[in-house]
């Protein structure tokens, strides 16, 4: 190493970069009104995550819709059964009234059904 090279080497060593003061980055970002985004995920990962979230949401909505349809069907069946029971009950009440009007107080059900066959 000649004299000039040695001198230039000393210059490089003397003017190496120094450590910025602690918190300088934070102060700059605060002044610029920028929030720090440490460890930001890559764009492709963010896109994949968005698609997964959207897919999950859609699946959830579809499940909910399906469940609502089943509940509606169950309610319709329940109402039909209630109507059937009510009609049957009225019919029986009417029959009982007629029987009473002709003087029949009690029908031996077992015997009547045997006689019929």
């Amino acid at each position, binding site marked *: 190493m000649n004299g000039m090279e040695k001198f230039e080497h000393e*210059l*490089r060593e*003397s003017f190496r970069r*120094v450590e*910025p003061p602690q918190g300088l*980055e934070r102060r700059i*970002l605060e002044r*610029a009104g920028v929030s720090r985004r440490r460890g930001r995920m890559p764009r492709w990962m963010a896109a994949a995550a968005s698609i997964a979230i959207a897919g999950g949401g859609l699946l959830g909505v579809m499940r909910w819709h399906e469940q609502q349809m089943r509940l509606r069907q169950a309610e319709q069946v329940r109402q039909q059964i209630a109507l059937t029971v009510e009609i049957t009950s009225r019919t029986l009440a009417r029959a009982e009234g007629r029987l009473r009007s002709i003087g029949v107080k009690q029908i031996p059900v077992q015997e009547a059904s045997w006689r019929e066959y």
Partner: protein
Amino acid sequence: MDATPDFAEIVREHQGMVYSLAWHALRDRAAAEDITQDVFLALHQNLARLEGADHIRHWLARVASHRCIDEIRKRGYRRGPALEEVREPGGCDGDRDPLLRRRLRQMVASLPAQARMMILLRYQEEMELAEIARVLDVPVQTVKSRLHRALELLRVKMNRGTAVVREARS
């Protein structure tokens, strides 16, 4: 691909360069931090116009250098803290002759503003002469001649100082 660079990442990557240029140019921690903050705020406002990492680095070096030159010239009549009083920040000296380094920094600090920045861009940032010329808006030949003159001056002063020390020791 997103062409907009992330400002926080740019600050993280380049704060060392900008702060070091300002610190070595001014030897004043508060002024160096003020300049660094101002330079990055200016970058934030101009970020959309800059294309790519090299452009950003060049832009930062350019704005920081001009800010430092302005500040050095402004301080021509206003003395800052004496160099002897300034505590060196981390990363400045290794275990090698700190007195020699300090003397070298003092001598560089006595150079005119533009020559001082040329030395810093060349030896702190390892820039080529053409890049220094673009950063400082001067012809390459001017950089070459001023840098050469500054180095010769520093070398002569340094040798003179070393001779005085040798004489004093003997």
